[in-house]
């Protein structure tokens, strides 16, 4: 190793140390449907602020139970509004930080490129045996799917052919593996973020058929990195983040 290189490395190490001393580590619990987008946003946030973001992806309901039990999360990026609101009401989250970072969009999707038509009329046909839907009690997208079926007056007709997934990730998995021909999933799950055409076939369910899937984020009360956590939650509403959010098929 040349002396110059060694000096350079030492300087770099010192700079990294100095930097690290000011960097906080933010533990973020993120809803499964948003995890791909969150990874991109977190990487950008780390670059812009120097803080470190640790993402855990999972079901919002599970995170609620874990936060209740004292899990060390600083931020909850939820799949719904109800869970963050509940945490705020219980004094377990910081009210001032609560806001809607994304509005999810529901699609009827099939791995078969020819199955789903532009109006979702396939739901009335017998060209399929199983319709995969996330549990309405556990997943906001499941709830939206149920509302859509009710709006279309198809709820009773399709019920015998519905298979219930425990979350929106499994709803997609049932369709991807071909075990269910159709499924209600999040647009963000099937729409490639580079804007290219999604695989299979899909019908983007018109927003009038279901209540908006508003996804809220909030800082958890009692966090030791409150400033960085608040910064991250605010960052979700920044232009840079919104570009990513939009690319993944969400509105806001």
């Amino acid at each position, binding site marked *: 190793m040349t002396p110059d290189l060694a000096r350079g490395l030492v300087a770099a190490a010192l700079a990294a140390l100095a930097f690290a001393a000011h960097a906080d580590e933010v533990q973020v619990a993120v809803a499964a449907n948003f995890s791909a987008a969150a990874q991109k946003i977190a990487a950008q946030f780390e670059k812009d602020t120097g803080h470190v973001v640790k993402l855990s992806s999972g079901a919002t*309901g599970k995170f609620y139970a874990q936060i209740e039990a004292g899990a060390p999360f600083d931020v909850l990026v939820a799949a719904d509004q109800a869970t963050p609101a509940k945490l705020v009401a219980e004094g377990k989250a910081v009210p001032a930080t609560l806001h809607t970072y994304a509005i999810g969009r529901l699609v009827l999707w099939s791995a078969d490129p020819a199955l789903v038509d532009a109006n979702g009329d396939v739901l009335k046909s017998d060209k399929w*045996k199983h319709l995969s839907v996330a549990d309405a*009690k556990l997943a906001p997208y499941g709830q939206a799917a149920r509302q859509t079926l009710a709006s279309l007056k198809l709820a009773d007709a399709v019920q015998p052919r519905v*298979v219930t997934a*425990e979350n929106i990730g499994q709803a997609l998995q049932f369709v991807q593996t071909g*075990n269910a021909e159709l499924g209600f999933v999040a647009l963000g799950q099937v729409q490639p973020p580079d804007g290219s055409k999604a695989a299979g076939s899909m019908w983007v369910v018109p927003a009038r058929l279901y209540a908006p899937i508003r996804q809220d984020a909030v800082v958890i009360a009692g966090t030791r990195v409150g400033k960085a956590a608040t910064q991250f939650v605010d960052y979700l509403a920044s232009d840079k983040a919104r570009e990513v959010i939009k690319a993944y098929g969400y509105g806001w």
Partner: protein
Amino acid sequence: MNWSDDAQAVWLTLKLAFVVTVLLLALGTPLAWWLAHTRSRWKAPLSALVALPLVLPPTVLGFYLLMLMGPHGVVGRATQALGIGLLPFSFAGLVVASMLYSLPFVVQPIQTAFEAIGARPLEAAATLRAGPWERFAHVALPLARRGVVTAAVLGFAHTVGEFGVVLMIGGNIPGATRVISTQLYNHVEAIEYPEAHRLAAILLVFSFAVLLGVYRLRPQGALVASPADGAPRA
């Protein structure tokens, strides 16, 4: 979610465990007999295959089953060609999956019991002109009865407690694939703790009673550490 949904899940679980246990005893006993007596070079690979569900995470098994039994998988194509249709999201699919999952819990105790008999009683029977079937049915099986009962009890109990595989391939359909463990999980996820407690208590009491029964049956000792009893380590 009310109690009748839970009752249905309990009933379905018992039905699943019963069917699986009966089928596994019918298929597992000849397999155990073969494993206990063969000198084939396939013995080791087959034993390893039988024991695989003991160490594999159920989600791995469930994931592969979902792929294999799906319309693009080998098993899925076969069942469709036979006119059975696809197995995921059906009671029949759960039976197949549970049989794989509980296989070692049935085969291993029976195999160990057969091995413990040794060659002498069977040779004695042979000198009395007992044929292979008579030696199996009238000598080996009665001598191995404790192993068979242990196998039945463990297979049944293990199927009742199955969760990961059902979660992966079940689709949570009331009356077809919604069993106690997935119902319990749903209660917990939905923050319905009183309902969750009720089902959890049922499972806990049941499991304790089963194990108590098994220990009563074999007062000589440990369930998992005694190779002579043939209980799998899990």
